[in-house]
Every structure is written in C-alpha cells, then in structure tokens.
C-alpha cells in the first residue's frame, strides 16, 4: 500500500477533521442523553437568570430594594393574595414584613451565591487537579509532602476557620472575593487526594509504561495518557463540589458572616424564611428560593453524571 492509497482509504480526510468529528460526537451523545440535557437546563436557566438579573428585573418592572408595604397584611406583615402575593407585577410575590420583590431578590441572589460557589469550585478543583496529577505522576517526596499537608488540613476545623476569617475581614475588602478564596482554600484537599490516588493508579498501568518505552516525555504522558482518564473524575468532583459550596455560602449568610448589607443572597433568603415556614404563614417565601437551589444542585449532579458517561469511550456502545 502506498501512502496516497492509504490516505485515500482512510477516507475521512485529515486527523484534525476526524478529531473535530469525534468531539462533535461527544456533544452529540451528550445531547442524546435526556438526563444530561435536563440537568444542563436546570443549571443553565438559573445561571442565565443570574447573569441577566438587571435586565429581567427591568422587564418585570421592579427592583430588589423598593418596599411595597401596601401589599402586606398590616397585622403580622404577611403578603396579601395567593402564593405569597404572586401577581403580574410581582412574579414570585413579595417578601413578608418588608414587601421587597421576591423575584428580584432571587435573581440577584443567584448572582452572588452561584458565582461565589462557581468561583470557589473552579479554583479548588483546578488546584486539586494540578496537584493530584503531579503527585500521582511524580510520586516520591512530592506525594509525601502533599499528603502530610492534606492530613494537616483534615485536622483543621475548616468551618470554624472560615467563620473566623469572615468575621474579621476588614470592611473595605470585597467580601465576595474573600469568600471565594477562603472556600477554595478549604475545598481542594479531598479532591486533590482523590485525583492523586487515581493518577497514581493510572501511572502504574501498563500503557503508561508502554508510552515510556516508546520514549514519551513526562508532559506527553500526563497529557495524552493520564488526563483523559482523569477528566471524567474532575468533572464529577466539580459537579459535587458546586452544590456543597452553594450550601456553605448559604450557611455562612445564615450565620451572618457571609455577604453583608443589602446584597441579596439565596442562603440569606432561605434563612430569613425559616420563621415563616415554622408558622406556616408564608410557605412560598421559602419554596421559591428553595426550588432555585434545588434546581442548581440537582441539575449540576445530573449534568455531571451524564458528562462522565459520555466521556468514557468504553460506554460508547452501551448508550
């Protein structure tokens, strides 16, 4: 067979095109999975709503701070009307006692909560991926040092530390950014250990040895042999870390050490709604923001799962 014949026989043209087609087929297979599409939608809709919060609120004709006390029952401050005061003007009703528009509070709340959680997850998982891959590949003293540091971090009362830091942050520092950094600082340890263990196991597999036997340099072994195996794990760890961070941001807000002032936040809304749930006076005050948190958490899990299945070539036929 001559080279020309071979290239003709290979038919589908350049490898670059082939690579593109294969990438297309990963996306294609993802979009054929209903659970993945549903999860992605659940994640993307609140995300887009958060991104476009000012626009959406303007369309609604409200803003997140005006008090509408005329819509409240003077006796106790409960919103008037069904579903917590849902109307054409106030799509998700109003907040009890203050009468602030709940839809505006939620979409602005998504902004702060989700972006802090996203930022913290991206930072911590990225650091964990780099460190885990490095410890898995190089092993030796790097692995030993990283392992001891992680042990040390495990022995640390992380949440206490976060609360303490958030309590003493000077007012002139951006609290959102500090939250991202602090959450990332305490979020990388478990993922780094999981990725490190997996990378170490892959590094010991025969095909890595075979790549070494053909003279592949370390970077190429990490990139071509190890990272494809770790990608699914990293995606899943990210999807797992995201809802966790959403709830920690909410918890900190509940404790009063999260975001401060009049910055809307999903966690703050949830904790503020607690007395209204206990008394049953305004269930909708919790249900609307709660549903948004549920959508984000459930959507991230579904999408992460589907993505992991699709990225694994061995399950290609089973789908």
């Amino acid at each position, binding site marked *: *067979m001559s080279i020309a014949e*071979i290239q003709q026989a290979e*038919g589908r043209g*350049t*490898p670059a095109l*082939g690579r593109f087609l294969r990438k297309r087929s990963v996306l294609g297979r993802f979009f054929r999975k209903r659970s993945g599409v549903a999860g992605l939608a659940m994640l993307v809709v609140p995300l887009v709503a958060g991104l476009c919060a000012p626009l959406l609120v303007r369309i609604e004709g409200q803003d997140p701070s005006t008090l509408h006390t005329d819509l409240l029952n003077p006796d106790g401050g409960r919103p008037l009307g069904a579903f917590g005061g849902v109307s054409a003007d106030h799509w998700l009703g109003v907040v009890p006692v203050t009468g602030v528009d709940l839809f505006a509070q939620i979409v602005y709340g998504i902004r702060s909560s989700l972006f802090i959680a996203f930022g913290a997850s991206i930072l911590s998982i990225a650091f964990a991926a780099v460190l885990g891959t490095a410890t898995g590949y190089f092993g*030796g003293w790097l692995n030993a040092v990283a392992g001891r540091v992680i042990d040390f971090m495990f022995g640390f009362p992380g949440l206490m530390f976060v609360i303490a830091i958030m309590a003493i942050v000077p007012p002139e520092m951006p609290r959102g950014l500090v939250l991202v950094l602090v959450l990332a600082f305490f979020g990388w340890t478990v993922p780094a250990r999981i990725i490190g263990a997996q990378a170490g196991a892959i590094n010991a597999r025969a095909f890595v*040895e075979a790549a070494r036997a053909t*003279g592949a340099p370390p970077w190429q072994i990490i990139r*071509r042999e190890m990272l494809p195996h770790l990608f699914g794990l990293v995606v899943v760890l990210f999807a797992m870390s995201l809802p966790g961070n959403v709830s920690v941001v909410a918890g900190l807000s509940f404790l009063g050490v999260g975001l401060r002032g009049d910055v809307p936040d999903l966690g703050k809304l949830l904790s503020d709604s607690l007395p209204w749930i206990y008394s049953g006076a305004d269930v909708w005050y919790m249900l609307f923001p709660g549903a948004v948190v549920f959508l984000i958490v459930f959507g991230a899990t579904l999408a992460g799962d589907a993505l992991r299945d699709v990225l694994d070539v061995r399950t290609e036929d089973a789908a």
Partner: protein
Amino acid sequence: MPDPVLQVEDLCVSFTSGGVTADVVRDLSVSLDGGRTLAVVGESGSGKTITGRAIMRLLPRGASARGRIVVAGREMLSADERELRRARGSDVAMVFQDSMSALSPYLDIGAHIAQAVRLHDPSVTRRAARARAVEMLDRVGIPEPADAVRRFPHEFSGGMRQRAVIAMALVNRPALLIADEPTTALDVTVQAQILALLRELQQEYGMAMLLISHDFGVVGSAADDVLVLYAGRQAEYGSLRDIFDQPAHPYTAGLRAATPRLDARLDTGGERTRLRAIPGAPTSLRDAGPGCAFAPRCGLADQVGERCVVEAPLPTVRPTSEGGGLHLAACHLDRLPALKEVAR
C-alpha cells in the same frame, strides 16, 4: 564483524526497601548481534523481566542498576533522561505481555502508533504519521488497516491487539526488540502466529530480539541462543541446540525434564514417561548465602559436596555441538549425568 546490538557487562540490579538491599540480578554478562534472538528463560522472580527493564532503564522505584549496558552504541546506564527518551522506541523497543493493558483505552490504535512515530521525528505531520500507522498495521497482518486504525483497543481481539502492540514497537525500526512474554496471554494457535510474525519482521529489519519467556516451547520455536537465569544469576548460556540437547547445568536439565516432549515416547521405546518437577521453590533473594543459589533444590549437589554451599560457581566454558558457539554454565560439576538422573 560489526559490534553487537546489545552488550551487557556485569549487570547488577538491586532493590532497596526498608534499609534492606537485595540483588535481583547479579553479574549478568551477555551480548546479542543483529538478526539474532536470545531467549531469557527462568521461573517467576528469576530476574528476567527486570533484566529487560534494566536495558530500557525502565526500572521500578527503589531499584538501581550497576554495570554496563550498551544498546546500538549507546551507554544506557550513564545516559541522561533526554538521551534515554531518544533511545527508547527508536533504538530499543518493547512488546508487553498483556496487550489490553499496554494500550490506552482512550486512544485509538492509530494514535498509539502515530505518537510513536512523531515522538522520534517531529517533522512528520500528523497526517503522515497516521498514514505510517496504517502502513504498519498492514505490515503486521491486521486486515483492513485503514479501518482498524480508527478502532479502540477494546474493539480488537487479543491476537489483533498484540499485533497492534508490535506495530507500535516496530514502527521506528528499533535495533533491539525486548519481547516480554509476548505470547503468554494468547491461546496456542495465536501464539504460533505472533511468534512467526515476530520472526519474519526480525529478518526483514535485521533487528536483535530479546525474548523473555518461561515457556520452553516458545523458546524452542523462536530462539537462536538461550540464557537461563536462576535467582538473578546466569545459570547457563548457549545455543538453542546446546541448551536443549546437552544442558550443562542441573537447573536447565531440570527444566527440560519438566517440559512435555512430543518425541518422548519414541525415545523410551514405549516406556511410560512422567514429567519431572523440580522440587522446592526459588530461594529468597534476601537470605542468599555464599554458595550456589540452586544448591538447596539440586539433585546433584551431594555429588559435589560442601563446595556447592560455600562457593558460588562462575560461568565456565562447556563443550558445544558443531557450530554451536559459546556455551557457558555456572556449575561445579564438569559433566552432568544423563538427563533422567537429574532433578529427581
């Protein structure tokens, strides 16, 4: 006469763990010319795989090698990482026992071979490397190579996968191929095909082959010369014929007696023959004494006496059949008695 492709001199490989050092290979010297096959034989733990790894400098963590290894004129033990990477895959390549785990499940067959091409010649375009992969798959006898190049390892049968591994190893025409139990994971008919393919490619490329095996049947059908290792030491070295017909080391003779032979019944005139086992298990490398490592299991040690326990035998020259080349054995006995007396 050209320099040998592989030259090993006084190779020692030792493992250190928990402050204890054990030699897994000791004082190994051997040389191998292009176009010839040297079979390295021995049971588990005899150091045959470690010897192969040492030649590629792919030793596990905690292992260190001393001595001298020259592959195609390159000193492997003193080479730096850069030089080693250049040698691996182009001067010396390796075929592994388990083809399934030797191929990455996330890369298609073509990517494996194309990567090997481009690693050693970055000027080759991706497209040309891919075409080389198809050509190579065709060469190792994979049907419809243009289609096979896009398949993933799990879509291949064991024999096809091993052919792909061979294609990956040989695409840069190495001077030396280390085949570490290349047929052990395959069934017998496929074994024969793979051995024939290796033999054929060896002739075509004129490369030297180090065939690591524990199977005397495989050795008998593929090797020119045989190196028998016991507990990391050279027990016997010689041409295939000398090793098979006139073994000079009791261990080699024991291995021969433990191997089924198709012609055995003819030889004994109808007498029923039993395969003999070598009693005992290999000695621990840690508490190796000063004597011959095989002595505790040797049926002939009492014919020599105390010397076997206190003095390790050095390889000495033994008689050869006509055209047999070098024949060495490390045994205090000058002549072995007839085969059936050994290892009872």
